[in-house]
C-alpha cells in the first residue's frame, strides 16, 4: 500500500512541547487550519462549524491518551488502530478485519483513514473520515465515538460505526483497548556461537539531536509503535553452518533461520528473525542483509564487519544499532530512502530522509551531505511515511511473509490463500504431485483431506476443484498468481461423509493443466500450488505449498511431444477426457500423431487415455438437425486402455520414473499416470470388456489391478474401497461385498455414487483412505 498522498500537507509534527501531543491539541490545530480557510462564520463549511462547535477548552481537558490498538469480539473481529495523540501521532486510524468461520480465523481485509476529522467535547470525542480499503467497501466512512475519561481511569471502549459515503449506517463494532502498540511482532535473535551481538546504545554518547535515551532493538521499534515480543527461543548457531571460512551465503542464512528459528513457518506471520552472524560472501564491507527478499522473514547482521558487541566503542555500537533496525525494516517491506521510486507503487526518493532506512553516506540534507551531516541530524527514528507504513500499512504489505519485497499490490487477493491465523478445523489438506513435468505433460494433482482430530468430522467429499469446494492457487515463481478455474463449473450439492479412525481420509485427483485461463503450466519454471478446502462448518483448510518444476524439452522428441500436447484443443480434450466434437478435431489429430510417432513414450499414455476413455462410451452429436450417435468402440477402447494400464503398472517400478517423480534433475520428466487415474482407466477397461461380453477378461483385469494396488501397500480401507468398486466385475467379490460387514458401508457408498454398470464421472468418485 502506498501512503503517498500529494493532496495532503506534510505529515510531520514537531516534537510536542511537553513530550506528548494530546487529542485536544491536535483537534485545536485542525480546527484552526479549517478556520484559516474560512473568512467568516457565514461562509463556513458544515465540517468547520461542527469542529468549531466542538472545540474544547484546553484547560478543562486532561484525559487519558487514546492511541493504541483496540479489538472487537464476534465472528467478524475488528482490530482498530487509533493514532491520534501521544509522542509522534501520524493522525490516522487503520484496522484489519478477521473472519472466524468454523474453527479457523482468516484475515478479511485492511483499511486506512488518512485524514480523520477530530471533534472533541467534554464527554466524548468523535473521529470521522472516509477510508481506503483493501477490498470494495460499500460503507467506507468510519465514525469512532470515544468516551472521554480521566488519565487515571482505564481506557474506554471505542464504538466504530461504518457508513456509506452519504451517511447510511453500516456495521458497528465495539472495540476494547488491547495495547498501546499498533502491532505486535514475535522477535527472535539468534547468534553464531562466538559472536557477541548488539545489546543497546545510549544516544547521548555521540552528538545527536533530540531526547537522549538508551535504545535496544525492541526500544527503537517500540518508539515506532511496534512491539517486539521475545520469542523466548534464542539459539546459538554453530559456526560450521557457514563453512570453514566463516562466510555465509544467503542460502546458508536461510537454512540457519529454518533450522533455528523456533517458530518459523513459511507463511505470513507477525514473526521476524535476525541472526548475529560473522560475514557474508558479498564482501568485507557488508554489514547486514535481509536474505529472503521474497518472504521478508529473516535478516542478518555481520559482526566481523560492523564490530563485536563486546567492548565496542560508541561509533561501533551506533552503527550496530542502525544496522539491526535497518535490516529488520526491510523485513517489514521498507526500501532504502534513495530507492523508494523502485517500489510498487513508486514513491519519490527521499535523499534528505533522516531515517533508519537511509545510507548515511547518501544523505543530502539542507545542513550538509554525507555521513557526518546525517549523524549530526539523525533523531534515531523512521521517517514519517515509513512510520505510517509500519503502523497502518495494509497487513499483507507489512507482515513478514506477506507480499514480496517492494510490492504493495498483488495479482490476486493475497488473503485468499493465506494461512489461517488459527486452525481448529480438525482437518488437514494435502496436495501431492510428482516434482517435475516436461512442459506439455498433463499436470495432475492428488488432493487428500484427512483427519487431525480423531474425534471425527463430517466432511464434504467433493474434493475435485471442478465441483467448487476446493480452490487451487497456482503461482509461477517470479510471475503471476492465478486461481485454477475449471472450464465447466459443476453445480454440486455437498456430499457429506464422516471421517473417523477407521476412515481417516478421502482423496481425489484432478487434472489442472488446462482451464478457463488456458494452460496454467505453459512455460518452463518453478511453480507453487496451494489448495483451499471449504469445509461444511465454514472452516477454510489450507494445504501445504506444493512446488513443481516444469522443465523445457531437452531433445527433439520431447520438443515434438510438447508441441503436440500444447494446443487449446488438446487441453480441452484432456479436460473432458475425450470428445468427438468437430471443434476439437485438430486436438485429436495431434494426439493421433503422438500415438503414431511415439507409441511407447510415457507422455503418449495421456493421449491414449483420452482416446481410450472417449472410445469407451457412445458420443452423440447434432448433424444437419439430427442427433447422430457414435456407438462405443469396444475394440479401440480396450486396446488403448490396456496399453495405458499395463504401461503405468510397468512404469511404477521403473527406477527412472521413480527418480523423475522425486525430482532428480537428470531423470525422465514425464511422470507415469497417477494411481487414481490408473484405477479409473482400469475400471473403465473392465467395464468395456464386460459390456463387450468378455466377463472373464473383465474379472481378470480387475483382479490384476487390485493385486497391483495391494502390492503397493495402500491402506486396508483403501483396498476395501477398490475391491468394492471392482466387485461388479468379479462375481465372487460381489457376493462377499453384499454380505461382508466390513465392506457394507463402502459398498453402499459406492452404489450411491453410481457404482455398477453406470459409473459416475471420476470427479465425483473420491475414495476414503
Amino acid at each position, binding site marked *: 500500500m502506498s501512503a503517498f498522498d500529494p493532496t495532503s500537507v506534510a505529515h510531520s509534527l514537531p516534537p510536542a512541547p511537553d513530550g506528548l501531543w494530546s487529542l485536544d491539541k491536535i483537534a485545536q490545530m485542525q480546527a484552526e487550519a479549517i478556520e484559516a480557510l474560512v473568512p467568516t462564520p457565514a461562509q463556513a463549511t458544515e465540517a468547520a462549524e461542527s469542529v468549531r462547535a466542538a472545540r474544547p477548552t484546553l484547560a478543562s481537558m486532561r484525559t487519558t491518551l487514546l492511541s493504541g490498538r483496540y479489538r472487537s469480539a464476534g465472528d467478524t473481529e475488528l482490530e482498530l488502530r487509533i493514532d491520534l495523540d501521544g509522542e509522534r501521532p501520524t493522525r490516522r486510524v487503520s484496522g484489519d478485519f478477521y473472519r472466524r468461520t468454523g474453527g479457523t480465523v482468516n484475515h478479511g481485509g485492511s483499511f486506512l483513514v488518512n485524514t480523520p476529522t477530530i471533534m472533541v467535547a467534554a464527554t466524548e470525542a468523535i473521529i470521522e473520515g472516509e477510508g481506503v480499503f483493501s477490498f470494495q467497501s460499500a460503507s467506507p466512512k468510519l465514525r469512532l465515538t470515544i468516551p472521554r475519561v480521566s488519565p487515571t481511569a482505564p481506557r474506554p471502549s471505542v464504538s466504530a460505526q461504518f457508513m456509506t459515503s452519504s451517511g447510511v449506517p453500516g456495521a458497528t463494532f465495539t472495540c476494547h483497548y488491547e495495547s498501546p502498540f499498533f502491532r505486535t511482532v514475535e522477535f527472535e535473535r539468534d547468534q553464531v556461537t562466538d559472536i557477541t551481538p548488539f545489546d543497546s546504545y545510549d544516544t547521548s554518547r555521540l552528538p545527536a539531536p533530540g531526547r537522549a535515551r538508551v535504545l535496544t532493538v525492541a526500544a527503537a521499534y517500540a518508539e515506532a509503535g511496534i512491539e517486539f515480543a521475545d520469542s523466548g527461543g534464542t539459539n546459538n548457531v554453530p559456526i560450521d553452518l557457514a563453512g570453514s571460512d566463516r562466510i555465509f551465503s544467503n542460502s546458508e542464512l536461510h537454512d540457519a533461520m529454518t533450522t533455528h528459528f523456533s517458530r518459523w513457518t513459511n507463511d505470513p506471520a507477525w514473526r521476524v528473525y535476525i541472526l548475529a552472524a560473522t560475514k557474508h560472501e*558479498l*564482501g*568485507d*564491507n*557488508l*554489514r*547486514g*542483509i*535481509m536474505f529472503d*527478499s521474497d518472504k521478508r522473514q529473516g535478516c542478518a547482521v555481520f559482526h566481523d564487519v560492523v564490530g563485536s558487541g563486546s567492548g565496542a566503542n560508541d561509533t561501533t555500537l551506533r552503527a550496530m544499532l542502525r544496522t539491526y533496525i535497518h*535490516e529488520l525494516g*526491510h523485513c517489514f517491506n521498507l*526500501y*532504502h530512502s*534513495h*530507492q523508494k*521510486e*523502485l*517500489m*510498487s507503487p*513508486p514513491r519519490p526518493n527521499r535523499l534528505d530522509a533522516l531515517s533508519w532506512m537511509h*545510507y548515511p*553516506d*547518501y544523505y543530502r540534507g539542507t545542513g550538509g*551531505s*554525507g*555521513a*557526518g551531516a546525517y549523524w549530526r541530524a539523525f533523531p534515531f527514528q523512521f521517517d514519517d511515511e515509513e512510520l505510517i507504513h509500519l503502523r497502518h500499512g495494509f497487513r499483507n504489505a507489512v507482515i513478514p511473509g506477506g507480499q*514480496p*519485497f*517492494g*510490492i504493495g499490490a498483488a495479482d490476486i487477493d493475497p488473503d485468499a490463500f493465506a494461512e489461517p491465523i488459527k486452525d481448529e478445523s480438525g482437518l488437514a489438506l494435502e496436495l501431492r504431485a510428482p516434482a517435475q513435468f516436461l512442459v506439455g505433460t498433463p499436470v495432475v494433482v492428488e488432493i487428500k483431506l484427512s483427519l487431525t482430530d480423531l474425534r471425527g468430522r463430517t466432511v464434504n467429499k467433493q474434493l475435485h476443484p471442478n465441483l467448487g469446494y476446493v480452490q487451487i492457487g497456482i503461482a509461477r515463481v517470479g510471475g503471476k498468481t492465478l486461481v485454477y478455474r475449471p472450464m465447466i463449473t459443476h453445480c454440486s450439492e455437498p456430499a457429506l461423509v464422516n471421517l473417523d479412525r477407521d476412515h481417516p481420509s478421502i482423496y481425489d485427483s484432478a487434472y489442472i493443466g488446462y482451464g478457463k485461463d488456458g494452460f496454467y503450466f505453459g512455460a518452463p519454471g518453478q511453480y507453487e500450488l496451494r489448495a483451499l478446502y471449504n469445509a461444511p462448518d465454514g472452516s477454510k483448510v489450507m494445504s501445504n505449498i506444493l512446488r513443481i518444476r516444469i522443465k523445457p524439452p531437452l531433445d527433439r522428441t520431447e520438443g515434438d511431444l510438447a508441441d503436440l500436447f500444447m494446443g487449446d484443443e488438446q487441453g480441452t480434450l484432456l479436460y473432458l477426457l475425450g470428445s468427438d466434437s468437430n471443434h476439437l478435431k485438430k486436438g485429436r489429430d495431434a494426439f493421433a500423431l503422438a500415438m503414431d510417432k511415439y507409441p511407447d513414450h510415457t507422455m503418449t499414455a495421456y493421449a491414449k487415455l483420452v482416446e481410450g476413455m472417449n472410445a469407451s462410451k457412445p458420443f452423440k452429436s447434432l448433424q444437419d438437425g439430427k442427433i447422430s450417435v457414435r456407438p462405443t468402440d469396444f475394440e479401440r477402447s480396450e486396446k488403448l486402455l490396456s496399453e495405458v494400464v499395463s504401461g503405468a503398472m510397468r512404469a511404477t517400478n521403473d527406477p527412472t520414473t521413480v527418480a523423475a517423480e522425486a525430482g532428480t534433475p537428470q531423470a525422465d520428466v514425464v511422470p507415469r499416470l497417477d494411481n487414481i487415474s490408473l484405477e479409473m482407466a482400469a475400471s473403465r477397461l473392465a467395464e468395456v470388456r464386460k459390456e463387450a461380453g468378455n466377463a472373464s477378461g473383465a474379472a481378470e483385469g480387475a483382479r490384476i489391478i487390485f493385486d497391483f494396488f495391494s502390492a503397493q501397500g495402500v491402506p486396508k480401507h483403501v483396498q476395501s474401497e477398490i475391491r468394492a468398486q471392482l466387485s461388479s466385475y468379479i462375481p465372487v467379490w460381489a457376493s462377499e461385498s453384499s454380505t461382508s460387514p466390513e465392506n457394507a458401508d463402502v459398498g453402499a457408498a459406492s452404489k450411491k455414487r453410481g457404482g455398477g454398470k453406470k459409473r459416475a464421472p471420476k470427479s465425483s468418485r473420491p475414495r476414503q483412505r
Partner: protein
Amino acid sequence: MRARAPLANGSAPISIVLSALARQVPAGAELAIVITARNLSSAAIRIIGVVDGAEAGARFPKWVPHVVGPKGRLSGPETPDFTSPLRPADFRLLEAGQSFDPTDPVDGASYFPITTFAHVTEEPGDYALSLELSTEAPSAAAWLGTLPDRRPQAQSDAEHVTRLLTDVPRLHLRSNTLNVKVI
C-alpha cells in the same frame, strides 16, 4: 577470472581526472574534488557513472577510490545490502572529446558522490587520492543490481538497459593521483 591491472590515463579510450580547487585544506573543511571522465576516442562511447554500490565495488561499473593518508589506506564505504537496478537514464553517451562528472545526478541519473573523499579532511596529513573505473563485468548480472524493481516500466527498462550495456566499452583504468594536504 583474474582482473587485469588498471590502465593509466591516456592508454584507454576514456580518461579520468581528479582535480581540487585547493591542494591545501583545513581539517574539518569540505574538500571539493572534481571528477572528469572524458572520451579520448574518435567515436561516441556509452558510459555509466557512480550508481549505488559502485564505490563499494559491489556492482559494475566499479568506481573504486583509493585514498592513502598518514594512517594508511582509508577504508571504503559500507557495501549496500541491495543495489538499485540500472536504468536507461544512468547511461551517458559521450561524443568524441566530450566529458562528464560521473557523480552528478543530472537528467535522471541515480549517481552518488564518492563518499570516501569526504573523509579525507577528518585528520591532518598528506593524502594521495585516485579513482579506478572497471567495466569488466564477468556477466550481465554483475551490472544489474539486486533490488527488485517493481515499477511498471521495469521490464521495458531492463530490456533497454541490456541493449545499452552492449555499447559500454570493457575497460579497467585508473585516474591521475591527486595529492592533498590537510592542515
